[in-house]
């Protein structure tokens, strides 16, 4: 685990350990309550999808309003290949990732040159187009139009991870797949590839001066994010059992964005926590028909009022407070906690107008 985490990030380590312990014992504690187990699976799946969006938005500085579109590609891959070619479950999950990565690559090639509003509009268009495309007559033989497709039950050998028959087994399948994806993403972020993504986010000019092909880096990031989104899509397909264009409305893309912002930009575990809170609120709010969306919106606003930099930022501030009060084992806090005076701007009038330009 040491290799995945920079030293001193004790908060993150404790959080991860707790999260994994809770995730492992959860079905034991709530055995028999299938609805709760199914919602817990949804937390993991939405959490993974939000992390992959955070890769783009938080770690890459790119905006995407069409994440549900990529999720749909991954989800559709499972019944299309599973029903027609009878592929094993692990191959279907991997194929969902690869197919979505290819779509992400095709989408990333042009969008790698776009920024801000232009990127937002392009990804928005993609997110809206995918469900429409699934309805179109040309693709309908593959997607079965508005009726959608029945997803094969996941199996390993003769054991079936039937979400109705063995909800706990399917829960653990999700847990293993999501944890493997998160480990891969964390490993990536802690390496030179991850540094490249963040360098391009912080300063494209400096990144280029350091030998980083900024366009290629964005394309690689888009493709990587799409790969893991596809895997989340595959899990969602298995979870739902049936997928149709209505499974992936535009609102789902916004929901993922809300999870990312609520959890904290550039925080993997913040996104997971964001997904957990959102699903809990969704479950609670479902008792108030007609008001559930308003309740969810109010909770998001409330969290952002209390923690403008998301749950991850709130956790860091609480940790700093604990360190300030001298609470044991809160020492060794992450570097962000020791906030120093901000950089002073260069003296006014020292810079000639021509020479301050670093753009191309």
């Amino acid at each position, binding site marked *: 685990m040491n*290799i995945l985490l920079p030293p001193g990030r004790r908060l993150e380590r404790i959080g991860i350990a707790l999260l994994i312990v809770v995730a492992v014992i959860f079905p034991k504690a709530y055995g028999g309550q299938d609805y709760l187990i199914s919602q817990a699976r949804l937390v993991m799946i939405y959490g993974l999808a939000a992390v992959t969006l955070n890769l783009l938005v938080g770690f890459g500085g790119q905006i995407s309003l069409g994440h549900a579109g990529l999720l749909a590609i991954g989800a559709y891959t499972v019944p299309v290949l599973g029903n027609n070619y009878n592929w094993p479950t692990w191959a279907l999950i991997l194929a969902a990732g690869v197919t979505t990565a290819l779509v992400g690559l095709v989408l990333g090639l042009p969008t790698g040159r776009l920024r801000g509003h232009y990127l937002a509009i392009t990804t928005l268009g993609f997110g809206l187009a995918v469900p429409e495309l699934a309805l179109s007559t040309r693709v309908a033989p593959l997607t079965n139009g508005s009726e959608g497709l029945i997803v094969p039950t996941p199996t390993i050998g003769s054991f079936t991870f039937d979400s109705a028959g063995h909800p706990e087994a399917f829960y653990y399948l999700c847990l293993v797949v999501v944890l493997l994806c998160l480990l*891969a993403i964390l490993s*990536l972020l802690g390496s030179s590839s991850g540094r490249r993504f963040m360098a391009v986010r912080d300063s494209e*000019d*400096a*990144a280029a001066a350091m030998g980083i092909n900024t366009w290629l880096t964005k394309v690689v990031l888009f493709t990587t994010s799409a790969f893991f989104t596809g895997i989340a899509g595959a899990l969602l397909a298995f979870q739902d059992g049936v997928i149709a264009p209505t499974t992936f409305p535009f609102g789902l893309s916004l929901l993922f964005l809300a999870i990312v912002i609520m959890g904290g930009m550039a925080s993997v575990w913040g996104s997971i926590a964001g997904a957990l809170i959102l699903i809990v609120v969704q479950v609670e709010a479902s008792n108030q028909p007609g008001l559930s969306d308003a309740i969810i919106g109010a909770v998001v606003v409330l969290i952002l009022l209390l923690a403008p930099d998301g749950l991850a930022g709130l956790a860091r501030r609480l940790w700093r407070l604990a360190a300030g009060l001298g609470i044991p084992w809160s020492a060794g806090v992450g570097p962000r906690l020791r906030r120093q005076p901000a950089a*002073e701007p*260069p003296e006014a009038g020292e*810079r000639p107008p021509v020479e301050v*330009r670093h753009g191309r």
Partner: protein
Amino acid sequence: MAGSAELALQDVSLRFGGVQAIRDINLTVPPGGITAIIGPNGAGKTSVLNVVSRFYRPQEGWVTYGNTNLLTLRPYQVIHHGIARSFQNVALFKELSVFDNLLVGADHLSKVTLVENIFRLPRSRTHERNARRRAERVLEFLDIGHLRNRVAGELSFGDQKLVDMGRALMADPTFLMLDEPAAGLQESQKVWLGRVIPGIPDEYGATVLLIDHDMGLVLGVSSNVIVMDHGAKIAEGPPDEVRNDPRVIAAYLGQEET
């Protein structure tokens, strides 16, 4: 090979609309030592650096480094030919730690793929180990070890300048361009920097092209000084000669004294 190539700008002109940033300039930076470009505000010093690092495309002229025609390169390819730079208005990766900023400087030295990084395969681990070792050396060389875990965007301007310089040193350059490294530093730090910069050619094997407003620093460390004014080169020579050149006194030093 380290620091053995010559940088040459031949008949280079650069315009932004009606503003002539560089005016038909010819200059060479010989390998091995420290060459400085000085000149008043707006003289075109940073524009020269931006032309070399390919952020600006000159309308006329040639720019070569050894046998390489730099004008055929894209900005991200320049460093692969050994040319690294720091920025006048620091362009650090603000959300990253100082240590990670330094590591990015060395990342172009390896061709580790994304998959190798995910699975931490041997090439990935070797690169990481070497980059970290190099970063430790840079932290020590610039005496910024105490800043290693700080978030770069939260540092003072002077400290950011040092990190910026360190990131360029991480790139294993044969040619290092420093754009006002002393800006924002306290007087005592400037004196200290005046002792550090002369060590770069020996310690890192890089030719240094230095731009700074601090005349004491520039004239103290450089073996060759190029003076620019209004986008043109008006004088060149050893520091003592330049210091006494009437054109330089009129254009720059004279201004400083008034």
